């Protein structure tokens, strides 16, 4: 670079700096505000989980726990089935995510090929299912008929492929993996299989991370599948068990809970109170692993994952 060009760069760098500075200030302020808005309620959840239920209802729990009590955690951990369901969920999520990523990415790859014949048909085939379905009863009957009812497989497999994720993955492959790579490989005599496994997959670390998070969280949070398709309580995933622990907290519109006015109403009222705290404890208990999973996935979102591919 000549001296004048260098000066020009330096000058323009100075100009850029000022508006960039403003940008950075705005950005910093923005994030401080956002972080407060997010952290405070999360903090509230944690302190509420060790507070007295009545104090919570009366709004006394604001900056610190009130009436420290571990009744909520006690109630949650006393459930014998909790530990086992925790283990179940970890296994289900792990198995399911691996299957999901594999199947989704394969299909996304196929759909991303410009010359794929029948693409419109397959697209419609998939997208149709996003809108139309038989409903709970026929799905239930189908699962029963093919023998998936009351097996771990129904949890692992149901919901393991999402059209939404498939389409997003397809877009990723289309935009992030240049077609020139494909053409180069084809000239070198590669097949779709080898191109996919040798080139696409390694370059898709980012989208794989995204899929891992989205599928993983969805599977981890799912309580409904276990509720409907499992009979054996040993197979129950975490959220189904947690939901039972929380069952008293569905906002009771009919007052039915009072209808059986037995002698031990007081114990029932007390149990309801404990449940008020337990719901906070449950969040703490259930959310831990997913936050860890995500923190682990962070490195795949770094910039420059693509570097090196173009030069090949």
């Amino acid at each position, binding site marked *: 670079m000549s001296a004048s060009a260098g000066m020009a760069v330096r000058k323009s760098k100075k100009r850029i700096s000022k508006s960039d500075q403003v940008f950075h200030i705005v950005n910093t302020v923005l994030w401080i505000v956002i972080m407060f808005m997010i952290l405070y309620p999360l903090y509230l959840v944690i302190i509420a989980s060790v507070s007295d*239920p*009545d104090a919570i*209802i*009366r709004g006394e729990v604001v900056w610190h726990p009130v009436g420290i009590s571990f009744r909520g955690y006690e*109630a949650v951990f*006393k*459930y014998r089935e909790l530990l086992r369901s925790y283990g179940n969920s970890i296994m289900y999520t792990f198995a399911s995510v691996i299957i999901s990523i594999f199947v989704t990415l394969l299909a996304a790859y196929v759909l991303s090929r410009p010359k794929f014949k029948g693409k*419109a*048909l397959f697209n*419609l*085939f998939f997208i*149709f299912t996003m809108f139309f379905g*038989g409903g*709970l*009863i*026929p799905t*239930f*009957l*189908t699962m*029963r*008929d093919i023998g998936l009812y009351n097996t771990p497989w129904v949890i692992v497999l149901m919901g393991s492929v999402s059209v939404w994720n498939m389409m997003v993955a397809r877009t990723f492959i289309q935009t992030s993996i240049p077609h020139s790579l494909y053409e180069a490989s084809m000239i070198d005599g590669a097949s779709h299989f080898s191109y996919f496994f040798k080139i696409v997959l390694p370059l898709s670390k980012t989208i794989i991370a995204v899929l891992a998070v989205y599928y993983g969280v969805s599977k981890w949070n799912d309580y409904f599948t276990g*509720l*409907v398709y499992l*009979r054996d309580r040993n197979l129950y995933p975490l959220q189904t068990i947690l939901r*039972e622990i929380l*069952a*008293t907290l*569905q*906002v*009771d*519109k*009919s*007052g*039915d*809970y*009072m*209808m*059986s*006015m*037995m*002698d*031990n*109403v*007081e*114990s*029932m*009222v*007390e*149990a*309801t*109170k404990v*449940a*008020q705290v337990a719901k906070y404890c449950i969040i703490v208990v259930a959310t831990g692993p997913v936050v860890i999973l995500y923190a682990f996935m962070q490195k795949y979102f770094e910039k420059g994952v693509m570097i090196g591919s173009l030069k090949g």
Partner: protein
Amino acid sequence: MKKKSLAVVLAAAMAASVMAGCQSSPSQSSSGSAGGSAAPSKADSSSTGGGSASSAENFNETGFPIVNEPITLKIMQGIRDVDSLTAPSEMPAIQRLEEQTGIKMEWDMIKGNDWNTKLNLMFASGDYPDLIVSPNTTVDQEEYGVTQKLLIPLNDDLTSKYMPTYTERRAAEDSDPCVSLIASDGNKYSVGYMVGQYINTDAHYFINQDWMTRLGLTMPKNKAELLDVFRAFKAQDADGDGNPNNEVPLEIGLDSSYYSVAYMLPMFGLPATGKWIHIDDNKQVQFTPVQQGFRECMEWLHTCYTEELLDPEMISQDANTVESKLKEGNAGFFPAWRLKAMGWDDGVAKTCTLYTPEAGTSFYRTIEMARKGAFITVSNQYVPQTLRLLDAMMETETMYSLYYGEKDATDGTGWKYNDQGKVQTLMMGDIDVKNFLDCNCLFFGPGKYIDSVFDWPEQRIEKTQYCHIYEDAGLMQKYSNNYLDLAPLTSEQRQANSLIETDIKNAVKEKMAAFITEGVTDDSWNAFVSMFDGMRVSEYIATYQAALDTMTLE
């Protein structure tokens, strides 16, 4: 061209899956009578046993065990959401029952929250349990019993033969408490569940005596005086904490169970509870929200609202929140079930007392009748055995062991015989996991029976006293609204009604909120009344009236 072939392919795919779906009907194998046409053989109540000949032989009509060769019955049991129970097979009372009767029981415990889903899936799948026990959850007997014939009629010919204990207790009452179990086709499809309490209504009124004493007020005799008392509570520092205006004179919620606005309507002559129709003294079905008393109540509450005599969170708070406030004690007046054993011992139970409103008040009258407790499905091959099993569950010691826990237990559960030989509960506070079924078991204790056997705890006596007071003061409605629940409607009518009811409920709730916060004008009232024409309310009332006219009311 491409689009057309696309459509053709899709149509073919749909057709193929529809045809594939034809295979997936309720399984024929597990319950032979699922196909509907085979049902009559089970529904024929006069046949004993049915099915295999061996089941008729494997049966002792009296004495124990009930069966000579052990059998297993599948039971689908609904429990309350709050209940945390061990597996029934580990409950001592159940184990004793199994030994005694020779019948092994396989339990499927389902919480109230999930009950509807699971019940409907169960019926859809064609895989029925032998017995459904659901005193605290509902089974639509019109739909599943009368219309679809998946439940067996359990009429007196069967129950008098196989359930002596049950029959005896029913007969001991002045009037048969099980008339409430009769469906629209005249059959009973369930065995009754009843915990007699000698009550005649749900909620009573309570006023804060402490506050009145502190301010030197006398018990108000009518609504106008009541309003003045509220004002005094608020303005004159009734709770004596040096801070006037932090009292809540009227503690109710819009839609919070027994603490709801609906329970204020009796003071205006309307025996309402939240189902918005009632029976007036002339046996006519009336639509509560359009009555004059309703308008007056709304105006009265609006006055309370503008003068800040109501809890500010009134519109949104739920029953749990109200109870929390009552526990704290900051309430001048409220409706509730009772004071004792509600967790309010340091709150309103200490300071409040029953309030008896003026004449002209009309409280909703409840008639104590059995609830539908247990059903037998068409796939049950051991009907007499099952009935005898249910009867065995009702034997006094067994029944109380299932309900409270073990006899003479030392862990804060259970029951014992007191010095007069009556059953006395030992239940203390809350136990985390119960090894008994609690109120989910098939308890059958009508009034007379319970009186003779059970030592009433003080909170029950308290409640009965309140009921007597209101009855003696002539504040109860003449004909109970319960007759509306008993009215023989067909399944079609019920389904049509349930849609209308959903609309009504929402409309009333929403407009009540508006009336209370904004007040009532002639225009807004007229608009409110005419709104219900669009909801076919007159049809709704007529259906009930026609059904009611066929009944005898007492």
